[in-house]
């Protein structure tokens, strides 16, 4: 079973990211589960969502305490204490940032990949919502499923111009990523 924890700030589409990832996996034949941990969230407040992917039905409903992957939608969240708690020793982090991964090496011993997701989103969507770009990069890194699965999941949620722009965005985000860099861990 693969467990992902997605950290974001209210308004960045954190919960939608989790739902979309799970839906994409479902279209590829995975068993999938996604849910948020709600606080009294407001725009800007830290929010967390969880995703589980498995080849068998998923029965547990506890929060993900030991994620294989972290997707962090906002660099500022690294200041929140305990954010990366529980990340497996060989776990990896995908971080929305314009900086190179080296800038974060001191923070955690894990494998970090950065993606300027907000920039890409502004470019393609005109809005700073980084979730779909990050999901696309995540899929490319892990090789879990093709980008097309993400497209299918987005089709269920969006229509018209917003859908087209998101499709373009996920292509662009995926292209900028080293495909399969995390594949070994994903297949473990």
């Amino acid at each position, binding site marked *: 079973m693969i467990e992902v924890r997605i950290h974001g700030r209210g308004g960045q589409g954190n919960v939608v990211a989790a*739902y979309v990832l*799970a839906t994409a996996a479902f279209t590829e034949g995975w068993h*999938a*589960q*996604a*849910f948020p941990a*709600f606080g009294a969230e407001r725009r800007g407040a830290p929010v967390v969502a969880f995703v589980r992917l498995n080849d068998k039905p*998923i*029965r*547990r409903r506890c929060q993900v305490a030991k994620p294989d992957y972290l997707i962090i939608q906002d660099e500022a969240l690294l200041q929140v204490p305990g954010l990366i708690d529980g990340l497996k020793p060989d776990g990896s982090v995908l971080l929305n940032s314009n900086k190179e991964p080296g800038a974060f090496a001191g923070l955690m011993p894990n494998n970090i990949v950065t993606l300027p997701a907000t920039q890409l989103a502004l470019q393609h969507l005109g809005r700073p919502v980084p979730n779909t770009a990050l999901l696309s990069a995540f899929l490319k890194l892990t090789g879990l499923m093709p980008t097309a699965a993400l497209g299918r999941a987005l089709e269920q949620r969006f229509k018209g111009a917003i859908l087209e722009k998101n499709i373009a965005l996920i292509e662009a985000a995926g292209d900028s990523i080293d495909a399969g860099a995390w594949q070994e861990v994903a297949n473990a």
Partner: protein
Amino acid sequence: MLKALEGSQAIAETVMLCRPQVVAAYPITPQTHIVENIAKLVANGRMNCEFVSVESEFSAASLVLGAASAGSRCYTASASQGILLMSEVLYNIAGLRVPMVMTCANRAISAPLSIWNDQQDSMAVRDAGWIQLYCADNQEAVDTTIQAYRISEKTELPVMVCVDGFTLTHTLEPIDIPDQDMVDAFLPPFNFARALNPRNPISVGTLVSPDFYPEARHSHHHALLDAITDIVAADADWQELSGRSAGGLLAADGPDDARIGILTLGSIYGTLSAARDEYTDLPSTRLIRLRAYRPFPADALRRACEGLTDLIVLERALSPGYGGIVAAEVHSALAAMDSTPRIHSFAVGLGGRDIPLELYRKLHDTISSGEVAPFSIIDVDLDKLPMEDRGLGRAVNG
């Protein structure tokens, strides 16, 4: 058709399939997505009903009572504070023997204020005279909602379908939504014999003197007991049609040699089931998930507990100043067994506290001494409380 859906969305689509004519809605976390999805279905012409955004839960329950009394199948949903606010109406609906179905998106009760999941709300109205069915996952929520309409309209008792708030309502997972034909085959059109009708006028809700009140309550109580047959039949019929059971009165699973049992209501089952598979070093355990809570399936429970030496009753509520609510009722039911297991009573996950896999081990460790400890909230962290609030060193069972 199997789709990846948020629980709330699945419930909304299921309600649509049941063809209610009147839906009353008042928003309260975590039920909001259910009524919002219904609003969208209505706005897009997919659902043909009177969708009424009322001004409080008290009015929501009152509105559906009026609607059902006037001969329409209806629906509403609420949680927590809303359940309490409408509680007077809930007693009224059940006492008047009006059929309807509502979803309770289980959530903790203020104070302290909490928007998160536990079952204090539905437990608080267990005596209102409704049928209460608890769902262990979103598929059960879908199937139970459909069955609820049949059970309710057959027994003339309202049915509360309890679905853990956030834990189920806001979780996206693969759910099979039956097609309209299947639901139409299962649910006959709404036909309430005692609906108000100018052609056959009756008076509903009259003052009843002591000369007849006990008889009315006797009839109500026995109607609930008799409903056990209908709950079983509905699930059996649904299984034939859909291939799926929604859990009957209760479901028990585990190795035949299990001597320890854990009884729960709702979604916590999933985590315990996964934990049982993980912690293979722990003794064999039977997991019993109660689906029907009212009427209370005493016979079925006794059968399910055969051979157990220990039964852990793990609930998501409590009666402050007493202890476990379900545990007390289980005690009473199992007292009639030739060999009654030791009954261990705990509350867990109050106010939405996350329930980790490790709870399973903790439960086993806690009961391993063979003693039966007094009721406790098993996941409380006393270090968070000042010394004088820890409830230690005081006389108990006074």
